[in-house]
């Protein structure tokens, strides 16, 4: 029994204290956060653009606008390809084919995850837009507001509010998926643990530790998302 505990404490020492290894975890966590934040920003921008493009095309009554039609095609191909291929494969292609000569691994990771996330976010926001009563668009247009203004000021804010829980879910998924960036050699939280395992032959402590860290972060995010959602709902008490 004592041997077990002394071995545990020595494992702990090797995994965290020796050579200030705990700093590697924190640095890795920082990278994971940075990639999540960057990818989320790109994902939401792409998502909103694609969603607007697709709903604008679908809601267009009567004549088909050829430009819009081309954009709509591109958007459909984009979501199909991105949602139809594994994220790890996308990372490998971006890291070793498209940007093979670039050493800006964080940039590649953010871009790839952002593009990936955009496909899912676009579908989430599209469902949000479609959940808004068509009467809202009619009311806006009947006041003489152009389509874009009604979208920006009336439809999108309500749509985002409606799909906020789904977007929060996407954020959490995205954060955990950052662990895949290890395949292009970026030292995120997971890679930090892998490197420590390679150097110390310890697996138990590093991996349990990062699992705990991921879990803790997700729990904090969930809490924050819940608070924000509650605050948004307050404005329209029913």
């Amino acid at each position, binding site marked *: 029994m004592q041997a077990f505990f002394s071995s545990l404490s020595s494992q702990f020492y090797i995994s965290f204290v020796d050579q200030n290894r705990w700093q590697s975890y924190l640095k890795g966590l920082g990278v994971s956060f940075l990639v999540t934040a960057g990818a989320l920003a790109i994902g939401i921008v792409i998502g909103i653009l694609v969603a607007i493009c697709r709903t604008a095309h679908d809601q267009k*009554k*009567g004549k088909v606008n050829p430009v819009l039609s081309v954009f709509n095609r591109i958007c459909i191909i984009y979501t199909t390809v991105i949602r139809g291929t594994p994220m790890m494969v996308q990372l490998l292609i971006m890291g070793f084919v498209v940007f093979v000569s670039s050493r800006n691994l964080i940039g590649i990771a953010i871009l790839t995850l952002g593009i990936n996330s955009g496909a899912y976010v676009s579908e989430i926001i599209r469902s949000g837009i479609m959940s808004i*009563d068509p*009467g*809202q668009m*009619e*009311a*806006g*247009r*009947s*006041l*003489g*507001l*152009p389509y874009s*203004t009604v979208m920006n*000021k*009336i439809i999108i*804010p*309500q749509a985002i*509010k409606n799909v906020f829980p789904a977007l929060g879910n996407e954020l959490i998924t995205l954060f955990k998926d950052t662990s895949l960036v290890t395949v292009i050699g970026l030292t995120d939280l997971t890679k930090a643990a892998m490197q420590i395992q390679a150097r110390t032959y310890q697996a138990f402590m590093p991996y349990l530790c990062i699992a705990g860290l991921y879990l803790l972060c997700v729990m904090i995010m969930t809490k924050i998302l819940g608070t924000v959602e509650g605050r948004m709902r307050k*404005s*329209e*008490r*029913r």
Partner: protein
Amino acid sequence: MNADNELIRIEHLQKRFGGNLVLKDINEHILEGEKVVIIGPSGSGKSTLLRCLNLLERPTAGHIYFEGSDITAKKTDINAIRMQMGMVFQHFNLFPHKTVQENITLAPVETHRMNKEEANEEATKLLKRVGLLDKADAYPSSLSGGQQQRIAIVRALAMHPKVMLFDEPTSALDPEMVGEVLEVMKELADSGMTMAVVTHEMGFAREVADRVLFCADGGIQEEGTAEEIFSHPKNPRLKDFLSKIL
């Protein structure tokens, strides 16, 4: 050909939804200051007719002239036309994420008709007029149907439209709230506003309408003063319709 005070003229208007011909060859006009009430059985195309006037529905054929210019023409700036035509919907369609005040000021400010202060002033003035000044900072969901519809009317009025279109404004209301909305509409009519109203409120039609149009089977079957339509109907469809609702 156009009378001087003709605000809206409809020529050979036709609207088709797929294979369904909803409006067949409508010819009509609305004079400045005139109150036109459109009645008729459901599915007769009366709402579609009204919605064609501000092109919420694109006519399949025919022309609509507003102040003499053809708004169905391709080059027409439809937003500029719609700014001059207020519309009130059956289901109010207030913006739920905005306060009453913001609902009213959004369009005037966004279209640069007024700056923020002017719009707020205008909103205050109009809210006072409909007796809802105390609700300026409330959200629509906290208001009753009647209150919401009065706000919707104010929202349209804030753009200073030349004509107001009402699409069954009281049909979605509880009976005890119909009165307060009709009251506002009557007051509006007395102030000289040009109005086109699709409604089932025959009392309102009798009291306010300069002209009543009876719409059925995609066409206007009979028109006349309220007195003519309600007391001396000629068309058998109209007689049948009135016998069912009066």
